[in-house]
């Protein structure tokens, strides 16, 4: 209970005494069951928070082990094989089970409905299902870690991942594949919520910038993640049944994998950074007590980044043997995506 030392709280207590007795989302129900079956966006946000913190912890331990190993040039703590598995699990968990879900699923679930004046997201049951799918994906990834791990690196480059690695590639890929559906559902949920559930009078160009950034992020989640799912499925098909897709010995093209992978993974970079930019836009304007400078420009820049971000994947592949002409096209588009990024940061 607030103390009377806070002046505004005292005023509230005097003016509206019922306010303090009201239940909030934490006190309305109790017990494990009420959490695991909740459809409340705030509770689901907290479920995500605890889940990603667990993955963050595991990934951090892997990082710490790597740094300790690197204290001496010779392998003292772990073998080369274990070291490779450490950076793989670190990468996989940090990218797909911490960074990508972090701001959208925690802060997004928690405050997106409040920012647009809605009681919840558009599909609360799907929202809970999305968390369960995320946990299932994470469990698969951890299963593959417990059974010996994967040593391909988080990028799963072919033909190493499909033909040459002797580790549990398929189960790890399956974990990321499953978690991807959680990302897609969350993105779709946020987009529908933003379209259909804004309070009357809250037009698009009155939305808080965090909502704009979440909207741009959701667009990427919905459009890019399926490509990752396809790519991981193709890896498993080649690895399991020997269908030649990426391994040149089977008639495939290893660079094709990189095109598909970065077509997802470059936009995924913006899944990680755009919500962060949205948070900063809100925090700085709030605590400097000033409206944002160039609101419409910043909101539009978020969308421009989301769209242009789909066209620059080849800048991860300059030395991959793609043609120099393709390289230059990706180069100029990458320069151009720096312009809206600059607007947001300015």
């Amino acid at each position, binding site marked *: 209970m607030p103390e009377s030392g806070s002046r505004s709280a005292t005023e509230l207590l005097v003016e509206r005494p019922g306010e303090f007795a009201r239940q909030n989302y934490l006190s309305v129900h109790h017990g494990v069951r009420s959490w695991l079956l909740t459809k409340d966006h705030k509770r689901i946000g907290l479920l995500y928070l605890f889940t990603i913190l667990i993955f963050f912890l595991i990934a951090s331990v892997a990082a710490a082990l790597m740094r300790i190993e690197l204290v001496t040039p010779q392998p003292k703590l772990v073998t080369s094989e274990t070291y*490779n598995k450490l950076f793989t699990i670190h990468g996989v968990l940090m990218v797909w089970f911490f960074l990508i879900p972090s701001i959208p699923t925690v802060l997004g679930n928690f405050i997106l409905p409040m920012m647009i004046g809605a009681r919840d997201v558009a599909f609360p049951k799907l929202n809970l299902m999305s968390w369960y799918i995320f946990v299932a994906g994470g469990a698969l990834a951890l299963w593959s870690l417990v059974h010996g791990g994967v040593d391909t690196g988080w*990028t799963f480059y072919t033909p190493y991942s499909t*033909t040459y690695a002797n580790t549990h590639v398929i189960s790890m890929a399956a974990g990321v594949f499953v978690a991807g559906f959680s990302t897609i559902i969350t993105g779709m949920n946020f987009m529908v919520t933003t379209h259909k559930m804004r309070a009357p009078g809250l037009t698009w160009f009155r939305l808080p910038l965090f909502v704009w950034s979440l909207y741009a992020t959701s667009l990427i989640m919905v459009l890019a993640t399926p490509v990752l799912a396809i790519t991981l499925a193709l890896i498993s098909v080649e690895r399991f049944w020997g269908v030649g897709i990426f391994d040149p*010995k089977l*008639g495939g093209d290893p660079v094709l994998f990189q095109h598909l992978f970065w077509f997802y993974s470059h936009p995924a970079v913006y899944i990680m950074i755009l919500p962060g930019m949205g948070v900063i836009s809100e925090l700085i304007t709030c605590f400097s007590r000033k409206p944002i400078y160039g609101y419409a420009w910043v909101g539009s820049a978020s969308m421009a980044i989301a769209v242009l971000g789909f066209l620059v994947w080849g800048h991860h592949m300059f030395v991959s*043997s793609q043609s*120099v002409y393709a*390289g230059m096209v990706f180069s100029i588009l990458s320069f151009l995506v720096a312009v809206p990024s600059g607007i947001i940061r300015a």
Partner: protein
Amino acid sequence: MVVIFLPIIFFSVKYRHGSPADRSNPRSGSLWIESGWTIGPIFLSLGLFAWGALTYFRIERRPSNAIEVQVVGKQWMWKLQHAEGKREINELHIPVNTTMAMTMTSQDVIHSFFIPAFRVKQDVVPGKYTGIWFKPTRTGDYHIFCAQYCGTQHSRMIGRVVVMEPAAYERWLKSGQSGESIVLTGERLFRDRGCSGCHAQNSQFHAPLLQGLYRKPVPLSDGTIVTADDQYLRDSILQPGKQISAGYDNIMPSFAGHLSEEEIMQLIAYLKYIGSQPPSSQ
């Protein structure tokens, strides 16, 4: 530190409680400023792009006078062969002030040939040829790293470039087992593996002659025209049915699995050699 802390102190004093500083909000947008710092960086980035693109095209164009070295990457070593036939593993001896060009492929996974001191890096991809070139201007030892994660011993896939004075290089080239030149090996393979049984003027089979072929346009049976470069020759050896020369039948067996990456490169070196001869030299 200075950039952060000086403004903190300055603003703490300026806006201290009770100071008469102006606290009204400045305007929250200006079309001119926004357009300015949007269009300005666009031209700036286009300028940087043009600068970078010119450099890229220069890197891409391999000088014609370069001395070739064949490079095969495998888990977890570099195998190199000079045109004179000398082979090396994880070491590359080259003369100073000479343009060197690597033709590279991998026999298993993707590797990346990286000499940080020369500022060159290029992935080495199974199933295709990639290349880099450089002209060292100072003698000495320089690192070679594999820059694409390739498995357990990736971090040990390291070597060195030894840049030598031309005289010392000549001595090194003649020392030890140097064997036959790549072209001679290729010629021997061309005979021993049966290529010459068909690709010859007096052959009973209808197969294209390969003299004068290299870097020339080849009309295909599907109507397209390709250039007979390294990649085309390689594909024709391993997947003969992929691109069939116009006027010929798809009768050549695949040599995939029967030739190592080095042997394919030696064969291509031989085809390059006869490729520069007039077509009717038989």
